[in-house]
């Protein structure tokens, strides 16, 4: 839709504002790092604001509206839900500002209704991330068996999509016996995993919606004396998780690259400022990290260790 | 004189404390009836039964020959029973006038909408309080700020101020000064003169002998004696209270 309003502020430097999700998860720190590092490469001025927690939908909306009145020319948004930032985005669209959507997608229908469709979307496909986790679980458990899933806050969309993808990948081959919610908290995940192991003495694996919780689950498994017998796979690829994979505490993590996502978001703003037309959707890289490639991943973190397709590199000319 | 209230065989226990044991007594219409007894004898508990706060375990309370089934103080007030409780029962955070008109508020009515007549209540409250108190508290000040006696005056005003058949006063003058006590005694006599009945609980025998028509004596949860005031003496009453004399 837009993407043409790339005006710079009076002294010529590009000013970008970013509103991202939570504070208490290193995932978003990497994202912020990516945004800031990329901004530095070309002297862009940037403000990053975050919601108070990963559930603070309206608080995040308040932050965007707070920033909307100011003279930024490009806004990077990572909405907590599909629609919670729509109101602020409508305000931005009316002022012909560029909106770059990263990580979690804005609901397409709602954006259209508000006449605020973002210029581009850069993020991971959570269903496919879950599927990759599921496929990895299949290779770990060739003989089949029971597995359980541990999600974030009950009803959380990201968590739901990951577990949905995981379920899709394993149907017919593994038995998903239980799904519980652990509020994105490590302690809670540990407790719930302990409970599930009691309820399902012959459990073979856990799929966990993020790494922080995954580390708690791995600990529960170790404490129960079932290390090695019960496989644990989680999603995110934070540094501690990569180390845990390397040490064999965690069997695998489906790594996303918030750093890359953030950096690409900034590149998109820079490209738009130069008047380039942005691609509607860019899928961010996802890699399954196992013991085999953990060293490689650790060395590269927070950047991806493999190569990935970055269409903005050429657009922004950096 | 016909009987207004007839308490028959009322008992009440709090856990293992038997506060009232088979209490029977009557309150005659248009009279001042006194209730006396030692501390902890059960006087206030009986008052709370008649004013609908407690429900007796056994026994009945009848008014004008009809048995009352009081489920709440609201029921009692509807029957025309107003009470000055010993613990005062004022709302400390409300003003004097709000307390005086509590659950009796004056309103301006406009169809279904009823808006408080704050000015009217203030005005009437001022007049009511002035009749009793010497150091008149401002009717707009919160009860929390009043002295012990000022509160007592407010509570008495409330009970006496509304058209009711029976006014129960649980030690109304305990906290009052000389002048205020005299005014309250006048008020009590005036209530009788107006044909209303009064149940007076008091530890002050002079007062009881001076004002009442009938005296009931309680001891350790029982109603142990009843006398016409004109037929008894202060000494006899004291004897009955302490148990030195018996019925």
């Amino acid at each position, binding site marked *: 839709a837009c993407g043409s309003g790339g005006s710079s502020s009076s002294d010529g430097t590009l000013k970008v504002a970013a509103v991202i999700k939570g504070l208490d998860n290193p995932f978003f720190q990497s994202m912020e790092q990516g945004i800031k590092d990329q901004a530095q490469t070309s002297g862009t001025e940037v403000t990053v604001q975050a919601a108070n927690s990963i559930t603070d*939908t309206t608080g995040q909306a308040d932050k965007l*509206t707070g920033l*909307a009145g100011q003279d930024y020319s490009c806004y990077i948004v990572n909405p907590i839900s599909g629609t919670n930032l729509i109101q602020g985005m409508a305000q931005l669209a009316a002022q012909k500002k560029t909106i770059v959507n990263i990580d979690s997608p804005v609901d397409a229908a709602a954006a259209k209704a508000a006449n605020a469709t973002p210029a581009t979307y850069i993020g991971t496909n959570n269903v496919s991330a879950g599927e990759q986790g599921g496929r990895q679980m299949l290779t770990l458990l060739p003989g089949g068996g029971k597995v359980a899933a541990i999600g974030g806050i009950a009803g959380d969309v990201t968590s739901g999509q990951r577990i949905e993808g995981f379920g899709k990948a394993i149907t017919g081959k593994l038995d998903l016996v239980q799904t519980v919610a652990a509020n994105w908290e490590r302690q809670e995940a540990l407790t719930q995993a302990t409970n599930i192991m009691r309820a399902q003495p012959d459990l073979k694996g856990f799929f966990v919606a993020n790494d922080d919780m995954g580390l708690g689950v791995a600990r529960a498994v170790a404490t129960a004396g079932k290390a090695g017998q019960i496989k644990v796979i989680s999603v995110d690829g934070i540094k501690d998780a990569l180390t845990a994979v390397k040490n064999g505490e965690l069997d695998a993590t489906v790594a996303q690259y918030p750093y890359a996502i953030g950096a690409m978001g900034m590149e998109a703003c820079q490209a738009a400022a130069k008047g380039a037309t942005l691609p509607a959707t860019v899928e961010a890289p996802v890699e399954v990290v196992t013991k085999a490639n953990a060293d490689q991943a650790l060395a590269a973190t927070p950047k991806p260790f493999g190569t990935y397709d970055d269409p903005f590199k050429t657009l922004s000319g950096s | 004189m016909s009987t207004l209230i007839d308490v028959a065989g009322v008992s009440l226990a709090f856990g293992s404390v038997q506060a009232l044991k088979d209490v029977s007594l009557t309150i005659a219409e248009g009279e001042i009836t006194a209730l006396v007894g030692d501390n902890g004898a059960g006087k206030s508990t009986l008052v709370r039964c008649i004013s609908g706060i407690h429900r007796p375990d056994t026994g009945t309370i009848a008014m004008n020959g009809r048995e009352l089934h009081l489920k709440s103080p609201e029921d009692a007030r509807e029957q025309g029973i107003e009470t000055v409780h010993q613990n005062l029962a004022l709302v400390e955070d409300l003003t004097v006038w709000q307390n005086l008109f509590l659950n009796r*508020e004056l309103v301006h009515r406009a169809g279904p909408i009823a808006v408080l007549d704050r000015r009217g209540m203030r005005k009437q409250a001022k007049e009511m309080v002035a009749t009793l108190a010497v*150091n008149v508290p401002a009717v707009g*000040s919160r009860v929390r700020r009043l002295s012990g006696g000022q509160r007592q005056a407010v509570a008495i005003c409330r009970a006496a101020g509304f058209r009711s058949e029976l006014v129960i006063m649980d030690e109304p003058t305990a906290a009052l000064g000389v002048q205020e006590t005299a005014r309250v005694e006048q008020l009590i006599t005036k209530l009788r003169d107006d044909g209303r009945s009064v149940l007076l609980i008091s530890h002050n025998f002079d007062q009881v002998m001076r004002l009442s028509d009938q005296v009931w004596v309680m001891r350790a949860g029982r109603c142990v004696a009843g006398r016409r005031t004109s037929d008894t003496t202060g000494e006899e009453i004291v004897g009955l209270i302490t148990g030195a004399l018996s019925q």
Partner: protein
Amino acid sequence: MTTATVSEHHARTWTSQLKDVSFWAEWAAAVGLVLLVIVFQILNPAFLSTGNIASMLVAAAILVILAVGQTFVVATGGIDLSVASMMTLGAVAFGQAYANGWGLVWSCLLAVAVGLAIGLVNGFVIARGKITDFIVTLGMLSAASGAALILSDGKPVTIVNTFLLKLSTGGIGIFGWTVIIAAVVAVIAHVLLFWTRFGTHVLATGGSREAATATGINTANVKIAVYAISGLLAGLAAILLIARVGAAEPASNTSFLLNSVAAVVLGGVSLLGGRATITGPVIGALLLTALTNGLTLLGVSQFYQPLAVGFVVVLAALLTRFQK
């Protein structure tokens, strides 16, 4: 001349009011808000731009409505921990109804009805079951969010409706429609609390339940009524929430809970019950909203924001310290 009459006389003169500490206590939230506005305005002149004022007011509208409901509950000495979840459940019910073609009006009515119903359940269990307010509403907090999850199957429903969109974006001058709704709610609540018998009975129940009962006030019914009001307003807030975020989600909205109580307490309403105003909590809600807005505007780092919020909240409360 008695001492007390002197006091009444004084109360009339404006200058003596300014010297009275309790006057300042009642207006502490307002003073705090003004100070905050001055500081933010000095640091960032965009703060008082009409655009920013308008968006602050819109951002505060939902909180104002919830805080008004909470005020009635707190005035009786209770607390409603389920406000936010009632709102969530109301929103989810709206979403399901709308998705099933009930249409806007019926969906709105359903949201309000759901809030009212849950409020009535809260009040009924508290008043008749004689269980502490805290536990009942804590249980309801959990139960209502569970019900919202079940009803929505954990998925948000996007609501695309031009009327709701207008509700959330349009308005008169700098006052958005939602702001106007919140203002109307506050005015009605003020009248209810100070100009009706019911309001007096609410304060009496909170001031001394025993004394209120002794004058024949049915305090159980008063309790039920205040929780019903809180539920009803949570249902109304649900509609505003949907208008704002464009979807009905089973999200927990916990920050609304703590903020609604914080607004009430900052507004000078005692948690012990018996004393309350409506203006206080409304200003408290505005203060909390202005705080986040200002900090964002100043670009205070996200990590420092909770620290700053905590600090300002305590400072603002310091102003109410003279209150008895």
